[in-house]
């Protein structure tokens, strides 16, 4: 008889969790008829929210990668108490509720906040603008990229970087020619997780950026607004957002694998 690792009892024990994850999505998918989905897409809330979500999450991701990569490199390559404390600080937004982050951002950038008056004197007013949406998304979703990139940088073989330097590369040259290509799968995974988190951002955005159609109302907030007036529109919006997330999950699972397999493809071509 073949030994089965899980056994029947194992499968039965695993089912409830799997059901909790999948049944709501199945319910969502079966709740709407194609006509209702089409009506949802035509709803005046839909396109502005979709366009705003697309713009702000791409901007957030750009900010996170540009500012988060040096931080990840420093976390991975340094030791000492300061680095351990920084690691803890980077993880904070993961455990702090998004609503709390929203209030904290208001306390920082609001009219009476820590940096608000200074920014106001420069003519910059951040809260309740599209820029505030980006700030909220960055604050909440950056840890996923920074952790992923730092883990990938930690796995690098120190000798490869030393050899690259002895072969004439500056620190920046060794970073871009050796460290980044080798850490790329981990960086892509982290970036995709960050993007997914930014796409779903709700609490921090609502408190810090508000819920104004066209300027701060992202997809999750549009769902919330639609739910108050028409459940069918909310369901259609939710379906589209779920589809977008699933589309994001596919590259999230495949791109890192593809990147590592590219080596094999090149070997076959050679």
């Amino acid at each position, binding site marked *: 008889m073949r030994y089965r690792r899980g056994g029947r009892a194992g499968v039965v024990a695993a089912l409830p969790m799997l059901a909790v994850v999948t049944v709501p999505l199945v319910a969502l998918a079966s709740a709407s008829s194609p006509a209702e989905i089409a009506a949802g897409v035509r709803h005046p809330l839909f396109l502005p929210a979709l366009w705003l979500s697309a713009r702000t999450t791409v901007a957030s991701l750009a900010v996170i990668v540009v500012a988060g990569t040096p931080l990840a490199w420093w976390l991975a390559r340094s030791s000492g108490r300061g680095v351990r404390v920084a690691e803890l600080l980077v993880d904070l937004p993961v455990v702090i509720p998004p609503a709390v982050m929203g209030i904290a951002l208001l306390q920082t950038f609001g009219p009476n906040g820590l940096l608000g008056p200074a920014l106001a004197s420069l003519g910059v007013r951040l809260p309740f603008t599209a820029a505030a949406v980006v700030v909220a998304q960055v604050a909440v979703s950056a840890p996923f990229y920074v952790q992923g990139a730092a883990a990938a940088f930690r796995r690098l073989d120190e000798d490869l970087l*030393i050899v690259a330097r002895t072969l004439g590369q500056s620190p920046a040259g060794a970073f871009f020619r050796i460290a980044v290509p080798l850490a790329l799968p981990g960086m892509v995974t982290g970036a995709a997780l960050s993007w997914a988190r930014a796409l779903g951002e709700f609490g921090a955005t609502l408190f810090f950026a508000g819920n104004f159609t066209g300027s701060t109302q992202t997809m999750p907030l549009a769902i919330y607004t639609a739910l108050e007036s028409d459940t069918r529109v909310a369901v259609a919006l939710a379906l589209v957002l779920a589809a977008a997330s699933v589309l994001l999950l596919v590259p999230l699972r495949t791109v890192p694998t593809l990147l590592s397999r590219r080596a094999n493809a090149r070997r076959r071509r050679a």
Partner: protein
Amino acid sequence: MNWRVRVCARAGSFALDAAVAGDGAPVALIGPNGSGKTILLRAISGGHPPVAGRIRVGGRILYDSDAGVRLAPERRRIGYVPQGYGIFPHLNVLENVAFGLAAARPRQPRGDRRAAAAALLGEMDCAHLARRLPATLSGGEKQRVALARALLAEPDLLLLDEPLAALDAAARRDIRRFLAGHLATRNTPALVVTHDARDVRALGARSVYVLEGGSVIQRGAPESLAASPATEFVREFFG
């Protein structure tokens, strides 16, 4: 070209304080695991910053803590072949070997760099490996590629960390002959870490340094070390 190194370096609680010197002939560095051999090599290459000391290769001072000289690794003209060979896994053999020419100034066209790398690979009987990826190479092939890559940059001093340790008996004999031949014909000074007395003889090393606990505890010609070993390690090494 002669060279002289004295470095004090720390790694955690481990302290290294060693002086090593040589001329055109290979110099062997032996010692038990954890004696500081790799840290010494990394300190010379610039990959591990020393606490104090002086490193001179030919007429160039690479590091001098008293004079405040601290050349970056890319300006030291040191060839470093680490224990795992340090081949870049995402580049094919030709790209690996040509890598050292990419940052050279004046800048050479890409085609010229590749041609130079291909010519050296041919000279080293590795022309057939040019388009292979490192993951598909045997240990002996990796060692040849790593050596070709280091030599193409024409270093003033070559550092080889256990170049033969991970190879089987046949590949070991093969690479030993290969190394001895190329080090002799190019007259490139080399500091070679080894665990095998046969390597010392085959490479023609005229001086051997014994590192134990971060200090050089004996140095001299292989015959004199074999005749009067200072420690049990040296006796077993030449035994």
